[in-house]
């Protein structure tokens, strides 16, 4: 069957529909009392149509020449005798796949949210923000110009801020939102600096031009490296990589579906997307690309270890997200665009499913604390099935989706950077352990809480079951090399051969054995209790303390940098400058004026004839001057 190619009007509609939903919900529906339902219907309908159009777009991109469609931009900003910025759309396999991921996960999360947020008084505000986020994310993905990418980049940051602080009556949520905003801002400075640097050297911010000029080495080596590192700093902030990772675990204060959509599947992956988008530039700057890989590999292990000890189910998932994003960067660094993006693609589905599962568990137990769970397998069978499937996928068990993407990263890193391979394999072990620690603590054993347990409603289970399909099978898309082929144009091979053939490679067995070992250890510790977690905790007390205190990173930032260095140091100097120099200057001028006025006002003695005399003298002087000069 031949499907005709998508037209620009429909491509624009992908972006405008969620934005229109936001524009309708925020001012028209939200302020008026009445039924809240229409808000969710509008929002879901908009993203649903966007999803269908995105699928059409993906097929069109697949069929297009060079797998690329360009939509000419709106002339957005033009300065006389100066730069012209077009807001155009660049659609290649990278953005088309991201579009499908974002719209599909957003659609599922929004359907799920209808039930999850049902009793919330701010139901309509929630859907307005979710629509705004979806629109900004789509804009970020499709944008053909780094300047508009940056604008949307900030817009997703704003939506993230609004949704983390959605329950603004909770001080912890407000603090988390502020933290997320400030920390990502540090990364964004790098992004902006890179934009300025690139623009000053090339006079353009068009992505295709930049990528081609990077290849033709118009930019000199160090400038290119600096620009790439600046872009990567933005990605580090957005994707929660070390050392700017500290905002992501706190961001779990937002509603759980928000965590699923924004802080697991899509927005945090924007950093990976950005590096993938500018990949030719990074390739031309190999040092920067190495930094990407090292930071990614380190973060993967670093965050994974913290995930081992968290009590809060969402925190475990948050650290897992940071860790997996690290692997994505590692994959980008050593394997090229498709490795990283394939990981992102699979991760989006199973991690969103894990979060939705956590939300479903929270609905039943009223808590996120795993110590008050246990034995939920019997009462929440569907949630248990979906969660376990996603956990297996995350752990990278054959033949689930996670296995294939992890194999891509492991194979690439084995070839290029054997040192970092150790990090990747340790991460595999940690991932399998902590996620099955969650599974066993939550679903196995006896219930330790006091709630009356019940399975979630169908409208929450349905999106989970739908997401379970890609969590199971999205990895198979590359079984015949199709996914890779979209990016690199390799020859494809057979479907079954792709799924089973990987097992012929010893690497697959190494990774499977590592993951199996992690699961086994979790089983031994949390089901059989041959090794008591509490005794281990006592025996390894210093390590445990380091991990629960999150390597003192929060303390470092808050106490040392924020309180001591900034508040007591730099800000005190600024305050002194403000008080003494700036206030002193204004107050000094005022005091001098006042004192001068006090003396000169004495001459105004009210003697009329003296005034008249002075006026006459003045007139005479003027006359003299006129006559003489």
């Amino acid at each position, binding site marked *: 069957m031949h499907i005709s190619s998508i037209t620009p009007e429909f491509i624009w509609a992908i972006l405008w529909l969620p934005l229109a939903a936001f524009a309708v919900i925020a001012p028209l529906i939200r302020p008026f009392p009445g039924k809240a339902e229409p808000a969710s219907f509008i929002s879901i309908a908009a993203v649903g149509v966007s999803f269908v159009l995105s699928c059409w777009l993906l097929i069109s991109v697949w069929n297009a020449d060079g797998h690329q469609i360009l939509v000419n931009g709106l002339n957005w900003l033009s300065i006389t005798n100066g730069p012209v910025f077009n807001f155009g759309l660049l659609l290649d396999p990278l953005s088309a796949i991201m579009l499908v991921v974002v719209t599909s996960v957003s659609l599922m999360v929004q359907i799920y949210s209808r039930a999850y947020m049902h009793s919330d008084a701010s139901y309509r505000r929630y859907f307005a923000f979710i629509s705004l986020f979806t629109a900004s994310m789509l804009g970020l993905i499709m944008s053909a110009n780094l300047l508009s990418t940056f604008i949307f980049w900030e817009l997703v940051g704003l939506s993230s801020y609004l949704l983390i602080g959605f329950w603004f009556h909770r001080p912890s949520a407000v603090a988390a939102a502020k933290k997320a905003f400030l920390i990502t801002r540090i990364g964004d400075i790098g992004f902006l600096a890179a934009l300025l640097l690139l623009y000053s050297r090339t006079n353009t911010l068009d992505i295709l031009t930049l990528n081609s000029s990077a290849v033709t080495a118009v930019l000199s080596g160090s400038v290119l490296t600096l620009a790439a590192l600046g872009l990567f700093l933005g990605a580090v902030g957005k994707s929660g990589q070390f050392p700017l990772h500290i905002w992501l675990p706190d961001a779990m204060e937002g509603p759980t579906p928000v965590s699923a959509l924004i802080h697991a599947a899509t927005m945090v992956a924007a950093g990976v997307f950005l590096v993938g988008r500018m990949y030719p530039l990074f390739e031309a700057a190999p040092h920067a690309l190495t930094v990407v890989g090292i930071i990614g590999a380190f973060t993967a292990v670093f965050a994974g270890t913290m995930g081992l000890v968290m009590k809060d189910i969402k925190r475990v998932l948050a650290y897992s997200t940071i860790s997996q994003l690290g692997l994505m960067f590692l994959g980008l660094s050593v394997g090229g665009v498709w490795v990283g993006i394939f990981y992102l693609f699979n991760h989006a589905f199973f991690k969103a499913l894990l979060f939705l599962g956590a939300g479903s568990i929270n609905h039943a137990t009223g808590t996120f604390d795993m110590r008050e769970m246990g034995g939920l397998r019997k009462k929440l069978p569907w949630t248990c099935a979906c969660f376990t499937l996603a956990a297996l996928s995350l752990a990278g068990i054959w033949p689930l989706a996670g296995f294939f993407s992890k194999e891509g990263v492991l194979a690439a890193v084995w070839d290029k950077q054997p040192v970092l391979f150790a990090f990747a394999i340790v991460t595999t072990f940690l991932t399998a352990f902590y996620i099955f620690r969650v599974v066993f603590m939550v679903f196995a054993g006896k219930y330790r809480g006091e709630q009356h347990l019940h399975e979630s409603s169908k409208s929450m289970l349905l999106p989970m079951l739908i997401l379970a399909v890609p969590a199971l099978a999205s990895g198979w898309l590359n079984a015949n090399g199709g996914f890779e082929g979209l990016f690199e144009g390799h020859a494809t091979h057979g479907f079954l051969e792709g799924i089973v053939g990987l097992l012929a490679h010893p690497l697959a067995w190494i990774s499977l054995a590592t993951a199996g070992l992690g699961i086994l250890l979790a089983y031994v510790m949390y089901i059989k209790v041959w090794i008591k977690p509490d005794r281990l905790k006592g025996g390894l007390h210093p390590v445990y303390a380091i991990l629960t205190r999150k390597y003192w990173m929060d303390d470092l930032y808050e106490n040392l940098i924020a309180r001591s260095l900034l508040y007591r140091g730099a800000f005190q100097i600024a305050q002194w400058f403000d008080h003494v120099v700036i206030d002193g200057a204004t107050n000094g001028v005022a005091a001098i004026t006042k004192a001068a006025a006090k003396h000169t*006002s*004495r001459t*105004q*003695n*009210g*003697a*009329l*004839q003296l005034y*008249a*005399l002075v006026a*006459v003298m003045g007139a005479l002087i003027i006359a003299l001057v006129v006559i003489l000069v």
Partner: protein
Amino acid sequence: MNIGLTHYLVLSVLLFGIGLYGTLSRRHAIVVLMCIELMLNAANLMLVAFSRYVFSHGGQAIVIFSLVVAAAEASVGLAIIISFYRQRKNIDIKDIDLLKW
């Protein structure tokens, strides 16, 4: 002897000088007011004289306006002086020094 422009101008300057001297030196407020009128009329005289000698009626027209303004000014000035007298029982110009600081 022909009376020419010069005579009028000299007369005008003399009148203006007398008025200026009176304005600056006399202490009686009404006298000061009258001296101011004198200066004003010196100027009027000059305007009329010039008007005559350059064959233009503009100067005379200005004088008509000036007279009207002078009349108004004199009435306002006298009203202020009367008001002041009612307050102070005195119209010494040295005492009219309220416009200070």
